[in-house]
């Protein structure tokens, strides 16, 4: 059991007021708030340890290097990677996915090959593959949904063929909360000798991820959705794949030796981390992982589910409100609830919620093809995390009533 009121106290932003109301933050699917421990870590690094890493032999640099590399090991452990060599730090999940498209993709995708994605994908796990397909004259295939917003596995099986070279799939939809059956999807892809990449940005904040058990080839996620700072993304990849991939960016730190006209690449993972990395934020990300481990992902997920259930109950009382979330128990949403209100644009909904201090997301959620699929121009969305309370949902409901009243 988790006490969100106790947890809230560890997040200084909740002392803030928005439009003379206490802050109710229901947009963690976009980015999470940061606990004091993470903020302290950033300040502490710049106050006491700041030095460039992997370069110098003096004390500060040694400390910074070791703190940075410790977080790599910690991250590997968090998702149960075989070794820290399988963890690359990037800027965000988007960059992680682009790295695979630009290195593995450019090397391996040939004309008439096929790449499969789902209609749930965030633009970050769609546009890189669209572009790669255009460049290589390959084909992009898209898995549709069932009427309950689950991944249509039957259709997926039909799309798979000898031509399939890559399956890129989200671990959790940021709009509908759908959690595709990753293990099955990956196993089927491997049956056709296809490589798999999971966009784990949404799921990893509250689900236990075991990349060895999933057997995915790549897994991309970002620190900022899981209590860590912005500016840190992670790419997990199987060691044998990383070894065969060419570098993404060239320059300092990613080389072993450089002569006038040639260079040799560093070992993995450093081959993929050109230039001074985001040292402070990576170190602070380690504190975020500590926080999550201490609280327990299972507890967080259980907590989210309770909040979601309550929100569905409350919001479905209003006939003008249409709810959008994955319902099938096997793929059901655990922390995300999208909704629309008849004749009121989601931006107007979010604006009125804001006047009550309730921060929610509105728009296409970087999922334009999914919006078209759902036949809506945009949606409003509430999402939950460990610091949210039942009272937050009551206040959201109050804002909902106000919205209906203004537009009645």
């Amino acid at each position, binding site marked *: 059991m988790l006490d969100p009121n106790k947890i809230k106290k560890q997040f200084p932003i909740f002392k803030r007021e928005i439009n003379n109301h206490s802050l109710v933050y229901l947009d963690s699917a976009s980015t999470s708030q940061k606990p004091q421990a993470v903020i302290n870590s950033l300040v502490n690094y710049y106050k006491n340890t700041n030095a460039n890493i992997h370069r110098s032999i003096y004390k500060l640099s040694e400390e910074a290097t070791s703190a940075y590399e410790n977080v790599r090991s910690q991250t590997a452990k968090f998702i149960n990677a075989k070794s820290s060599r399988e963890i690359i730090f990037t800027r965000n999940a988007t960059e992680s996915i682009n790295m695979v498209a630009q290195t593995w993709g450019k090397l391996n995708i040939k004309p008439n090959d096929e790449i499969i994605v789902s209609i749930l994908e965030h633009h970050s796990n769609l546009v890189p593959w669209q572009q790669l397909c255009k460049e290589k004259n390959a084909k992009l295939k898209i898995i549709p949904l069932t009427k309950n917003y689950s991944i249509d596995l039957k259709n997926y099986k039909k799309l798979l063929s000898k031509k399939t070279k890559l399956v890129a799939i989200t671990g959790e939809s940021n709009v509908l909360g759908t959690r595709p059956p990753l293990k099955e999807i990956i196993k089927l892809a491997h049956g056709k000798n296809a490589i798999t990449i999971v966009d784990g940005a949404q799921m990893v904040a509250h689900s236990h991820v075991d990349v060895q058990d999933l057997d995915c080839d790549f897994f991309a996620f970002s620190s900022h959705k899981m209590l860590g700072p912005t500016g840190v993304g992670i790419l997990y990849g199987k060691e044998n794949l990383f070894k065969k991939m060419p570098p993404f960016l060239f320059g300092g730190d990613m080389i072993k030796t450089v002569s006038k006209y040639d260079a040799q690449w560093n070992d993995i993972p450093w081959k993929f981390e050109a230039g001074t990395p985001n040292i402070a934020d990576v170190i602070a990300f380690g504190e975020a992982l500590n926080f999550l481990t201490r609280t327990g992902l299972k507890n967080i997920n259980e907590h989210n589910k309770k909040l979601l259930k309550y929100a569905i109950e409350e919001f479905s009382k209003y006939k003008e409100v249409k709810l959008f979330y994955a319902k099938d128990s096997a793929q059901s949403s655990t922390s995300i609830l999208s909704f629309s209100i008849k004749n009121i644009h989601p931006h*107007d909904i979010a604006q009125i919620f804001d006047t009550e201090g309730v921060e929610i997301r509105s728009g296409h959620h970087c999922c334009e093809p999914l919006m078209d699929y759902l036949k809506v*121009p945009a949606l409003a969305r509430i999402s939950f995390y460990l610091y949210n309370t039942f009272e937050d949902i009551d206040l959201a409901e109050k804002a909902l009533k106000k919205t209906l009243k203004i537009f009645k």
Partner: protein
Amino acid sequence: MDIYSEIILDHYKNPRNKGSVKNATATAIEHNPLCGDKIKIELLLDKSNRIKTIKFSGSGCAISQAAASMLLETLTGKTLNEIEKIKSREIIKMLNIPISPAREKCALLGLYAVKKAVELAAKPRNSKKRSK
């Protein structure tokens, strides 16, 4: 001051000049990718190159729809030149509600679409002049 003033809500619920124009001189569409708002402008010029009819269609938030409705009410009889001179700040002033930076594009979407249509309407006219 409330962003959802009575005037804004009235124009949103009962938009003026909404629809399409037969034999339009020019048609233009503007999108706001952030919210999926879309405004289409169709205009017809009279013999003296003034706006005879101008209508909008599309969907979007209350601010974008009301702003388009309010703007179009003022345009009949205006010359293309006069419309080209309309400034963004005049629209914000006309709306008379607090517009945050995030909502500015909503407020101005109609004006952008109108200006795009006006530019298109002006083009054949200019090229004809040149060909003479």
